């Protein structure tokens, strides 16, 4: 019997079936405070004709652009991260973002990393007071918003406070708490930890495409280009039925993290990580800003 066995036996009298009802009650009081339905509301489809028209036109423009894109010859040299991300930054800068009203909702339909899970649609009201979800084929459920770090009012404030200068933004991203899927943590090659943090955190914010101010989106793309070991991979499978332009943080055997962008308008299409032969993908199937919970862009 070695010291480890002796240690394992220490205080082994503490039973395995301890009463956890008090803790459960405390957790549930917190959970339910966020989950109380606000009452069944009929979704009001009140989307303005003008908005539909605008979106329809935008979609048409994108389609035309896609059709008009010259096919990329297979022998084309692999584009550099600096070139592609600068182009993405220029497109972002030229885009216009309408004013966001606090009573609008950010809509997201994000795929799951595991195919057995249903794909939910979610709406978060911009003032953070309400969230809503819908399961495939299910009814819209509206509940109270949550106060955590994913509250859209916080995200919006954070986005607006980002520096426009890509170097300053990158320095900031290296230090704030990472919010993204891991690539190699906690065994990243020495010296790459801050890069991994910055790459993953920028990716996390890119999910909020519809509410990112154009100059901040541009700075985010330019900051990404400055991260060492970032390269571009074309025709990357998002795991959600599409392929896109992969901005890859490639740390070799330690892992690869992909931020996947639309090859035409550089919209965020998803996140993917490849590590030791395992692939986890979180495709963004749709996202946008809408006027009511239940609406889709």
């Amino acid at each position: 019997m070695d010291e480890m066995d002796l240690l394992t036996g220490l205080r082994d009298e503490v039973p395995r079936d301890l009463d956890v009802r008090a803790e459960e009650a405390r957790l549930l009081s917190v959970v339910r405070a966020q989950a109380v339905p606000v009452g069944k509301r009929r979704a009001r489809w009140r989307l303005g004709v003008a908005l539909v028209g605008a979106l329809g036109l935008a979609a048409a423009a994108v389609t035309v652009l896609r059709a008009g894109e010259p096919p990329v010859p297979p022998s084309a040299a692999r584009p550099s991260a600096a070139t592609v991300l600068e182009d993405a930054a220029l497109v972002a800068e030229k885009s216009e973002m309408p004013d966001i009203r606090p009573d609008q909702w950010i809509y997201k339909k994000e795929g799951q990393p595991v195919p057995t899970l249903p794909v939910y649609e979610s709406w978060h009201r911009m003032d953070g007071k309400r969230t809503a979800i819908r399961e495939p084929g299910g009814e819209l459920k509206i509940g109270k918003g949550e106060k955590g770090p994913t509250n859209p009012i916080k995200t919006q404030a954070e986005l607006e406070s980002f520096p426009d200068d890509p170097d300053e933004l990158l320095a900031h991203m290296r230090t704030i708490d990472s919010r993204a899927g891991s690539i190699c943590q906690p065994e990243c090659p020495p010296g790459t930890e801050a890069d991994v943090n910055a790459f993953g955190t920028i990716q996390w914010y890119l999910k909020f495409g519809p509410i990112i101010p154009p100059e901040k989106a541009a700075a985010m793309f330019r900051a990404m280009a400055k991260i060492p070991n970032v390269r571009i991979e074309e025709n990357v499978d998002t795991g959600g039925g599409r392929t896109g332009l992969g901005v890859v943080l490639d740390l070799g055997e330690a892992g690869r993290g992909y931020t996947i962008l639309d090859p035409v308008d550089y919209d965020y299409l998803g996140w993917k990580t490849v590590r030791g032969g395992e692939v986890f993908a979180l495709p963004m199937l749709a996202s946008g800003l809408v006027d009511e919970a239940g609406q889709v862009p």
Partner: protein
Amino acid sequence: MPQQRSPLAEPGTGGDAEVIARSRHDPEAFAVLFTRHAPALKRYVVRRLGLEAAEDIVAETFTAAFRQRGTYDLTRADARPWLYGIATNLIGRHRRSEITLYRALSRTGADPVVEPFTDRVEGRVAAGEVRGRLAAALAALPAGHRDALLLVAWGEFSYEDAARSLGVAVGTVRSRVFRAREKLRRALGDADPTATSEEYGHG
């Protein structure tokens, strides 16, 4: 070293990551995570800090986890490293009290932590010199070494999971556990290993 994983931690079988993903839209789903992990986590915390402090720590661990679920890394099917990492931080706020409890055991031979669960007399009889020496050695370890050692010994964590839990490299956990074990061995000192196991075997 035995490795305890969530029975449903494998992808596609309703692992923790799926529960957390679901709970982002359906908060009450988070209760599943509590049912899976709370009893073992509570036992772990009780062994470190006693029954009284454990209720707060377990409740706070799960409410903190619930609030942070939006940032959970869904590529990690097993949430134990995450939960025990949060708990380890909370335990760290009670370091003085943890050390006091080890010292009490080392000094008096009676363990205030197990007393609520055993007959008082039986508890005293069971506490022997070996326990006292182990407790004194645990009290003297640097906090990070004790966290790593106890996640492995009492939490039944692999080195990899302990590393994830503590947010350090596997090599760091390995060296911390190695050095902590060395100190434990030294503390047990020249005690006759036969006598030791006999004494302990009756505990």
